[in-house]
């Protein structure tokens, strides 16, 4: 089996995080932005697992359990908000959300 | 002696009561306000009667307020603060008498008025920098509402400008005090402790702190070029408020300069002395000249009080025993006289003729329409010119002599300022009251209906003020005997020594 170094894992999680952040910043569709948020969470999850493995402590793994739960809760709340907004505004494009003046 | 703090509490309590009473009827609010002001004044006078002049502050109350920061609620009195407390009592009583005709939201008016007065009493009584600052800011905010709600011309602009200037000044003071407090090791805000600690500060620190604190207070004292709030504010303010502004609030600034900035940082004073004196003289002459060309009666008075406060600052800057005592005397004198002038202009004349344009006033022979007002205004004018027999004379004379000791040049310029003051005062007396109807060139002629007569309240208020200016003019030692011993205290000795150029 392949033996990846810790750096590989950290690099991968950093890359995932960067991709997610990029998506959050440039995508206009709320749902896609939303997925990118989850991607950022998953990135740190990967980091935690890797660190947990290489540190030899279990804290990271436990942390991951809770992150998954929190992510699920975030999905629940986020979806609810998006649906509520869609019912009012018939759009989920971020740049069309300009009722509140800037 | 121990009754003096009650002046503060009585005023604040009176504010609350006036607010409550105002919900029932304006009349009750008026009487509540008048009674509490009289009570406070009476307390001050009774304290003055058995006041033993001596060097240094005589502690009245002193107990820990915020122990973790070494802040104490410390009230004390000496001759200087007693003088100004008496002045506050006079101004407050007169002010309430002259705002007897306030009908709209009277309760709130007198509540704010008394809150301001309470803050002023507190400043004059504090011996702890934090306590002093708290009372100082309590005195600032009511001014905004007094002017913005009950004021006249351009009131919201005037009010905002005045309050922002004052608050910016107090921010400077706060910065300086906090800096000194931190540099002193954050043990105490007591004026005495700070002064002792300040002796260990580096020279540059002293200069910086003095600049911050003095400038902050001097803004409120109307020092050139930070005086511009004063004329607009005075003009916009209702009569009683401008009486308080000129009479008492500007004194807060001067008092702060003397009691806080100068006594804590004498070294700083020694450095900045010429600058301050220069600004003071510019203020005297510039404001006088501007007053000479104003068309608005109230602007004349507004600039005149800037000019007179210039004398106070000059006396402080000269920083020798005579000049400083003269400055304090001038604070008292100007407080009374300016109150009188504003009372005549704002209440007696404007409320009846509804114009303050000198051109309009000259068209109506006011000395016949309002003889009492004319008489009072002449007295006040003479007093503010520094005519012998009125309080202005000993005050400005003492300042000039004292300043001469420090620098003859300054004294000469200031003397020129006296002449300018005489000029614009005579002009305004002549134009406003003794202009004859013959020159009515199409302007608003003499009003058809006779002007309403001067009310009893106005007469009472005017008499109080006239009496005090004449009394002090004839017998200045009444106050000087309090002031001079106070200047013997170590703190002031440091000032007077450090002040030598």
């Amino acid at each position, binding site marked *: 089996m392949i033996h990846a170094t810790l750096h590989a894992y950290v690099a991968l999680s950093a890359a995932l995080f960067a991709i997610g952040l990029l998506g959050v910043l440039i995508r206009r569709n709320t749902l896609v932005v939303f997925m990118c948020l989850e991607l950022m969470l998953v990135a740190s999850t990967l980091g935690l697992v890797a660190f947990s493995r290489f540190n030899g402590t279990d804290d990271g793994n436990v942390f991951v*359990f809770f992150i*998954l*739960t929190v992510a*699920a*809760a975030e*999905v*629940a709340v986020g*979806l*609810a908000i998006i*649906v509520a907004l*869609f019912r009012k505004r018939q759009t989920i494009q971020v740049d069309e959300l300009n009722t509140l003046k800037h | 002696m121990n009754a003096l703090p009650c002046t503060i509490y009585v005023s604040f309590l009176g504010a609350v009561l006036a607010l409550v009473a105002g919900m029932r009827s304006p009349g009750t609010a008026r009487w509540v306000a008048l009674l509490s002001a009289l009570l406070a004044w009476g307390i001050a006078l009774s304290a003055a009667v058995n006041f033993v002049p001596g060097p240094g502050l005589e502690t009245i109350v002193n107990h820990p307020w915020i122990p973790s920061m070494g802040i104490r609620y410390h009230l004390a009195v000496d001759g200087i603060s007693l003088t100004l407390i008496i002045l506050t009592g006079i101004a407050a009583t007169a002010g309430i008498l002259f705002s007897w005709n306030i009908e709209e939201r009277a309760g709130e008016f007198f509540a704010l008025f008394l809150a301001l007065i309470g803050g002023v009493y507190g400043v004059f009584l504090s011996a702890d920098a934090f306590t002093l600052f708290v009372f100082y800011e309590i005195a600032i905010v009511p001014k905004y509402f007094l002017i913005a709600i009950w004021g006249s011309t351009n009131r919201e602009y005037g009010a905002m400008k005045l309050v922002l200037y004052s608050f910016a000044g107090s921010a400077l003071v706060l910065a300086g005090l906090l800096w000194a407090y931190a540099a002193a090791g954050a043990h105490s805000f007591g004026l005495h402790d700070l002064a002792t600690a300040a002796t260990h500060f580096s020279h540059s620190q002293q200069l910086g702190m003095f600049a911050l604190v003095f400038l902050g207070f001097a803004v409120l004292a109307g020092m050139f070029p930070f005086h511009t709030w004063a004329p607009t504010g005075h003009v916009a303010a209702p009569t009683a408020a401008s009486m308080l502004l000129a009479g008492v609030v500007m004194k807060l600034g001067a008092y702060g300069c003397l009691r806080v900035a100068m006594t804590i940082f004498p070294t700083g004073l020694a450095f900045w002395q010429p600058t301050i004196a220069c600004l003071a003289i510019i203020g005297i002459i510039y404001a006088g000249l501007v007053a000479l060309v104003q068309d608005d009666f109230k602007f004349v008075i507004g600039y005149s009080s800037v000019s007179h406060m210039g004398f106070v600052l000059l006396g402080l800057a000269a920083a020798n025993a005579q000049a400083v005592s003269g400055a304090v005397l001038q604070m008292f004198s100007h407080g009374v006289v300016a109150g009188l002038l504003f009372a005549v202009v704002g209440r007696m004349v404007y409320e009846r003729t509804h114009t303050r344009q000198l051109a309009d006033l000259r068209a109506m022979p006011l000395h016949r329409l309002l003889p009492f007002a004319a008489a009072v205004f002449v007295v006040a004018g003479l007093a503010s010119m520094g005519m012998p027999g009125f309080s202005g004379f000993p005050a400005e004379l003492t300042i000039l002599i004292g300043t001469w000791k420090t620098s003859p040049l300054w004294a000469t310029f200031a003397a020129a300022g006296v002449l300018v003051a005489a000029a614009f005062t005579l002009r305004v007396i002549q134009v406003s009251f003794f202009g004859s109807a013959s020159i009515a060139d199409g302007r608003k002629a003499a009003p058809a209906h006779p002007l309403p007569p001067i009310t009893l309240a106005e007469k009472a208020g005017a008499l109080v003020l006239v009496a005090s200016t004449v009394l002090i003019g004839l017998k200045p030692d009444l106050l000087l005997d309090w002031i001079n011993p106070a200047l013997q205290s170590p703190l002031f000795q440091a000032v007077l020594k450090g002040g030598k150029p």
Partner: protein
Amino acid sequence: MDAHPYAFLALFAAIAVAFPVILLSVAQLWFRFFQPAKPSADKGAAYECGVTPTGDSWIQFKAHYYLYAILFLIFDVELLFLLPFAVAFTGLSAGALATMLVFIFLLAEGLVWAWHRGHLEWK
């Protein structure tokens, strides 16, 4: 030589790929030469069992089902905690058991709440 024991898998895979490819390419050729495209409105219409279709076929479906999705998600994630709990069950102290029971109770309470609010009835 005897083939690798899994060689036939490769063979099957090759055939599995080749078969549809061949058929599709033949169909493509047939279409190209014998049956050029003649599009028309009737042809393009959505098929409604012979009835002429009405309205747009891109209608919006009600989003009510997302509540089910969310509820499912929550209870799906619950497994994440229940599995380790079940595995380590025998070695758990009373306190841990109580903690877990609190957790399950809260989830169940949530379900009951959703049920009572009528989020489980398909409207």
